[in-house]
Every structure is written in C-alpha cells, then in structure tokens.
C-alpha cells in the first residue's frame, strides 16, 4: 500500500457529477417529486433515512436493471476517478444509495464500497433491508482517514474523520457538513491536488 491514509468518498455529487436519484427519476417521469426530496435531504431539512425510503418507494416500480443501466451512464468526475484508480487499495465508496442500483457503478469504480441494501425479487425491489449509517462505517476505520462528501448524511462520517472534507464541486455542501468539516474544496482539480499531498 502506497499510503497510510484511507480515503472515504461519498458517491452522489462527489464521484458523480450529478445526484443519481433525480436522474433515475427523470428517466421514469418522477423528476419533480424526487428532486424536491433530494434537495431537502442534502440540505438536511428531512432526515436521510426517511427521505431515502420515500424515494425508493417512488422508484421501486422501475425494474432494477433499468435503474442500473441509467446509473452506469451517469457522468463521473474523471480526475477524482483517476485518483481512486491510482490508489485503489486505500479508497472506499461510502454511499447511502442501494447496492442493487449502484452495484455495477461501484464495480466499475473498482474499490470496496459500503451501501444501503435492498432485496430484489423478479427484477424489482421488494424491500430495503438496511439504510447505511455513514458515521458507523467511519467509526469502523482504524488509522488516519479522510472523508469526502457534501450531503447532510455525510456529516457524521466527516465529523469522525481525521480530515473531514466538504466537497462543493457539484453543489454547495450542506450547512451541517460545513459546521464539522476541517476543510472545504469547491473544484475537482484542487481536491485531487490536496489528496495527492497526503500520499
């Protein structure tokens, strides 16, 4: 391993150039309902747990395979991805999104990922079995680690981290994230420069 640091990345709006759930919603004609819920969740107006279950409820009528295909085409922050590829052993994806939806994308990114989980039957979600608590994942890490994210559900992970980095390259970080972050960066290249200084 090339570094003693571990790098924990949020997925939506950190590795991806856009929030994933509203993209899925757009494709299946539920954009407005999902977008409103997503915005309120990022800001922390409604708890992630509750909002996420509501959004899954709205989207579970869509076949899992269709969602996976949409997710696989979401544009990614290429420089961030490059950093992850160069440091595979020490990078992790930590996302509240569902394993059955973002699994193929996480496989493509090629590092260990922590996700929420759902049960699928005949190609459709039947229930969510676990909503990921990012703080809990962060606490399970030993040694120095940096957590990078922007949504309200990233705050706990960012608070636990040796370096808690609020990333505003896609949209403004939630106030709860800025309140506990040690650093904030608003441009991808600057983010990668900062991360490389830790290697």
């Amino acid at each position: 391993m090339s570094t003693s640091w571990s790098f924990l990345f949020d997925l939506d709006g950190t590795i991806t150039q856009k929030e994933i759930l509203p993209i899925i919603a757009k494709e299946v004609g539920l954009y407005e309902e999902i977008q409103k819920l997503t915005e309120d969740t990022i800001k922390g107006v409604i708890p992630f747990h509750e909002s996420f279950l509501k959004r899954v409820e709205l989207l579970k009528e869509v076949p899992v395979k269709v969602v996976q295909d949409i997710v696989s085409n979401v544009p990614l922050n290429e420089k961030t991805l490059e950093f992850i590829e160069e440091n595979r052993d020490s990078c992790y994806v930590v996302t509240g999104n569902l394993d059955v939806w973002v699994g193929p994308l996480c496989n493509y990114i090629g590092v260990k990922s922590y996700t929420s989980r759902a049960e699928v039957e005949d190609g459709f979600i039947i229930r969510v079995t676990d909503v990921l608590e990012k703080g809990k994942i962060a606490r399970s890490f030993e040694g120095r680690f940096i957590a990078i994210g922007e949504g309200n559900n990233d705050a706990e992970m960012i608070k636990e981290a040796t370096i808690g980095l609020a990333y505003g390259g896609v949209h403004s970080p939630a106030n709860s994230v800025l309140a506990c972050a040690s650093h904030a960066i608003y441009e991808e290249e600057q983010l990668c420069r900062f991360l490389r200084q830790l290697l």
Partner: protein
Amino acid sequence: MSVSKTVVINCAGVGSRLGLGITKALIEIEGKPLIAWQLEMLEEVNDIRVVVGYQADQVIEQVLKIRKNVTFVFNHDFLTTGTAASLSLGARYAQGMVISLDGDLLVHPEDFHTFLRYPYESIGYCIPSTEDPVLVNVVQNGSEEFISHFSREHGNYEWSGLVQMDATKLSMTSGHVYQLLEQYIPIKAIPVRCQEIDTPSDYDAAIVWVQNNLIAINSR
C-alpha cells in the same frame, strides 16, 4: 509560470480592534475586499489555503467569486485560539515550503514575488508603522540579512507577518506566530513594502497605500 509552494492566508479572526463587525478579509478598500487584493497577487500560486473562522461562509463566498481552486481550512475555535493555531491548521498536510500571509496584510506585489521566488526559509520585515508592532532585529552577515530576534519592545524593524517555512515546522496550537518562529532564528530576512490593518487609522492608511502601491502599479 505557476508556483508549487503553499500559501496560507489566515482569515479566521474577528478583527475586533478594527471594530467594523466584519472579518478583515471582507473590508472594502478602493472598491474591492481586502482578500481580492491578496488573491490578485497570488494568481500564479496553485495551492492557496484560506483559513476561515468568523463569518466563514461569507469569506468562502467572496473567495469563490474570484477563484475556485482554493482549499478552505476551518478554524472552528477561532474565538479562543490565535494566529499560530490558524497557521498550523492551514499548513497541516502541506508538503515543502509554506508561506504565511495574514489576512490583514497588504504586500507590494513586486516584493511578494521576490519573497515567493526565494527558495529557503525567510521572514519579511518592514519599516515600523503599526501601533502595536512585533519588532525584529535585522543583522547583516556578509551580503545577506538575518532576523536575530523578535521583541515587543526593541528592534530596528517591524515583522510584516510574512514568513516562509517548511510545513513540518509550523505546528503550534496557541500563541502568536512569532513565538513559534523564535526557535528557528536566525532566519533569512527579506525587506517588503506592506501595510497591515489592525485599527481604524491603519484602515485609512491602507486606502492611501492601495492607491499609491497597487492601483498605481495596475495602471502602469
């Protein structure tokens, strides 16, 4: 040409001696906030770290209007810690040389570039001008000048607040930056023309200073 050094701008303080109720980075001088004058001087520097505390969101917003490629470092304890703690947070995790620029300091761009180009550890000194200065004794050694001590009472020049040090040496959680630097003297001394803004009369002087030193340069 771009520069690979890290520049830390310390903007976390309340600026209470100035008494304007806004952090000094945001005070307007000749139509621009102070931080904008500083960032203009730092165009060629890739790694700028702005330490924020008081009114952090407003400082971040202002900086992002000027450039996006900045790392913000939070000093959440800005009310109870001093400049050394802010610098220490800003320099942490940087590699190689770090230049510390106080958020209330205007430096002549030509002098700053000389300082930036100098490859070794160094301190910027100036003619005493502020009401409550940190003084330095500058001594000649051959063709070079060195800072031999810091003092609140004695010294032939004033410390500008500008310093260039290896990142690993800038770790301290309390007190003033000069107290942190004392252990490393003698340090190479470089003269700089500058204007610090601590009090209302400094602010008035800064406006004239900007007219004479920065606007005059830009219109050349």
